[in-house]
């Protein structure tokens, strides 16, 4: 383990907290991630199946809220920034490399299926729960939103609850 390369977690958390304060002070809203994925999905459906997008409630509601331009969304710009920022960080700390990471005890196909399934569940859950770890849990905690804090407890509580059954994937 070469953990020394990473920033002290309390310092990182403090900086992240400051960033959150600055974000709320400037924009009146917190950080997020899954919302950008939603924008991309809606934009794709708009292009691929415009009639479906008009008829189906989810897309129609979203398109009305965004005046028909789903990609012109704060979170999309923010998430592009996340990718750039993480890349810069990886470059500085010499962590850039193409790598399919998984526990040595499982095969890469297992990890592939697990990553895909985990993504599907997280994507689905983030829509139902109105936000993910960033938008609902972290930002919700900063503004003391009841819903955000319930979602946070459910995410981490749920993960602990199910962790035992999937331990073979990790340890």
């Amino acid at each position: 383990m070469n953990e020394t390369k990473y920033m002290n977690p309390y310092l990182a958390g403090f900086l992240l907290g400051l960033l959150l304060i600055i974000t709320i002070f400037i924009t009146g809203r917190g950080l997020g991630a899954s919302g950008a994925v939603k924008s991309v999905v809606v934009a794709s459906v708009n292009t691929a199946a415009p009639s479906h997008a008009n008829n189906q409630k989810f897309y129609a509601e979203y398109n009305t809220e965004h005046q028909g331009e789903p990609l012109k969304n704060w979170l999309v710009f923010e998430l592009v920034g996340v990718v750039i920022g993480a890349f810069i960080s990886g470059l500085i700390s010499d962590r850039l490399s193409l790598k399919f990471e998984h526990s040595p005890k499982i095969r890469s196909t297992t990890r592939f299926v697990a990553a895909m399934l985990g993504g599907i569940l997280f994507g689905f859950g983030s829509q139902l729960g109105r936000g993910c770890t960033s938008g609902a849990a972290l930002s919700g905690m900063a503004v003391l939103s009841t819903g955000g804090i319930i979602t946070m407890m459910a995410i981490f509580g749920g993960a602990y609850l199910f962790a035992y059954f999937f331990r073979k994937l990790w340890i």
Partner: protein
Amino acid sequence: MGPLVPDIIGNELNYVVALLIGIAFGFILEQAGFSTSKKLVGLFYGYDFTVLRVFFTAGVTGMIGVIALGHFGLLDLNLIYVNPTFLWSAIIGGFIMGLGFVIGGFCPGTSFCAAAIGKTDAMVFIVGLVIGVFLFAEGYPALESIYKAENWGYVRIFETLGLSQGVFAFLLTTVAIVAFWAVTFVEKRVNKDSNLKPIPVYVTLSIIAIIIGFSTIFLPDRRESLLAKVEKSDVSKTADIELITPDELTLRLIRNDKTLQIIDFRKKEDIDSITLPNSLPMKIEEMFDKDSKKILSKRSKDNIFVCYDGSVAKKAALLGKELGYDNIMVLEGGFNLLKNEIINFKDYSLSEKKPDDTHRFRAEASLILNEKIAEAKKNKAGSETKKSKRVIGGC
């Protein structure tokens, strides 16, 4: 002052801000080690609690910062986005996300960080995310009833629990500190590290954090505390409120005094039935809003506060003083006195009483003022004022 969007920073510039904030967000997450699933799921198996440390520290810092900004009046907490609470979707959605977390090893934000530095497993996770969102979108008609069930609105946790904001913040800070010490102990056990001696720096930081957390109890929301203070004050004894008599106000109104601006605190239906000239409706709790600030802070204007009998207007004037407005006067006796003495002026010159100057003035003024009131009512129709809305955010 805050939020700066949309008044100080325009909506277009906000996209640039989003990009910059995103860069900082991605950089911090990657530096913290959130770009590897192994580190991310560590907290669920006890070998690495980095996520809990970063997450909790960030959340508590953010919370205390927002409370402090609100207390010092730098951020209007009524305009910021508070995630709405829909009980069932929050719980069920959260559980599904938790399941996705232990199976996939990422959450959305961290998967993009990991993908950015070349983790292909994270890219697979992102493909999964897109599919998951798509499945939800397609299933939305069937899921809508759960999605929208048990809507509690924009409630905040301390309200739900019946605590004050500061007490909750202190409790949460304390829980975080206790959790940090507990998980460090667990982590050392799991990783077979026998060195359990506490690091002095962390002891100091913990104490500082708890003191800061405790001090939030004395940082109530400025809005709530000022409203409470004004509500408690005995306005009948307050000498430092400037008053204006109905006669003086009427004189200035009929002279078309442009420096005059009436702020009417009466109920909407009463304002609609008799609208005073140059007047704007306001409620006492709206005085904190940005829109009200634009109205009340006009340098060249005298703000005349009007309510029914003067008592609410006096409280509003005290609040105005607290908020830093120094050009406020209160109509003595309120609208009721103005109405009795001038608007509904009763001419008694025909009776035995000898009319004096005041009486002659009121007789004349009543006619002009009533004309002006009719005019104001006509102008009012069709002109609705624009209001600042709460920021829409969320994922």
